[in-house]
């Protein structure tokens, strides 16, 4: 049993201290993954809240078929796409959220913004694969399991994401 498994078992028993530890361990990952899909800090915060509440309520249902991180990121993805579907039905549009652009006092802002703009131009499916592989360091199989697609599709999406990003940054 891993440390994560033990932590989740405590959360399943409604241990709030354990839940706070889990939050501190995974909140950044959840928020950043949601932000990569939604491109809006406000909506990403909503997803963080909903994801963590879902983890609190369904911790006992975790069957250990995947790593805890992958399970939580899967919930994050579902929450983000639920929100995105709602947004597309006529509420706020995430791409209009100007605060998604980062202020950077270190002087590399123009470079970050170029990457952000290039990322925004990628299709959602390619953006999420790129995030899971480049930032979360998931294996092909883990990414495929999380996204519910074949491993070949993961590699193909990643390949196209790379090509498109390179084209945008050129």
């Amino acid at each position, binding site marked *: 049993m891993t440390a994560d498994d033990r932590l989740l078992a405590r959360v399943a028993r409604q241990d*709030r*201290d354990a*839940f*706070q530890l889990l*939050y501190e361990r995974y*909140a*950044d990952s959840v*928020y*950043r993954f949601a*932000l*990569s899909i939604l491109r809006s*800090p406000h909506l*990403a*915060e909503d997803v*963080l*809240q909903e994801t*963590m*509440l879902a983890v*609190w309520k369904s911790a006992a249902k975790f069957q250990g078929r995947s790593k805890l991180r992958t399970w939580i990121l899967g919930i994050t993805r579902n929450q983000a796409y639920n929100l995105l579907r709602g947004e597309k039905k006529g509420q706020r549009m995430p791409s209009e959220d100007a605060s998604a652009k*980062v*202020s*950077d006092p270190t002087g*590399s802002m123009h*470079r*970050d913004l170029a*990457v*952000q703009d290039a*990322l925004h131009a990628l299709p959602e499916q390619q953006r999420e694969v*790129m*995030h899971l*592989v*480049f*930032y979360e*360091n*998931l*294996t*092909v199989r883990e990414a495929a399991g999380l996204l519910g697609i074949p491993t070949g599709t993961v*590699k*193909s999406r*990643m*390949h196209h994401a*790379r090509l498109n*990003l*390179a084209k945008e940054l050129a």
Partner: protein
Amino acid sequence: MIRCETVGRWLPWYASGQISTRKMQRMADHIAGCETCQAELAHVVQLRHRYTSTVLSAPLPTNRLWEALFNNLEGVSNAQIDVGSFLIGLNVGFATKNRGSAVQGDLRVLGRKVRVIGKQRKGA
């Protein structure tokens, strides 16, 4: 013999070390003798670095989010009375929880809260 096309598809995982030792070795052998794949690997490594730098430069959510979340766990607030000012005050609330209901009260002194009715949560 592994082909350039196959190596190219696996490069993002090669760059992060997220492949089997056997595949890693086969790819390393190919890349060592292939300038095209060396250039592509350098490109993937650079792209990965730029991506993670961009992700890490984004501001993170505030601690208030955790407070709001914790309040959600404590249940839905049905009634709340708050008297006093920032310097000193008392807040009493009635909330419905998953299993029943609860009354909570906090004494507030200079912005710090101390639970005086109900269970005090650690770290609060």
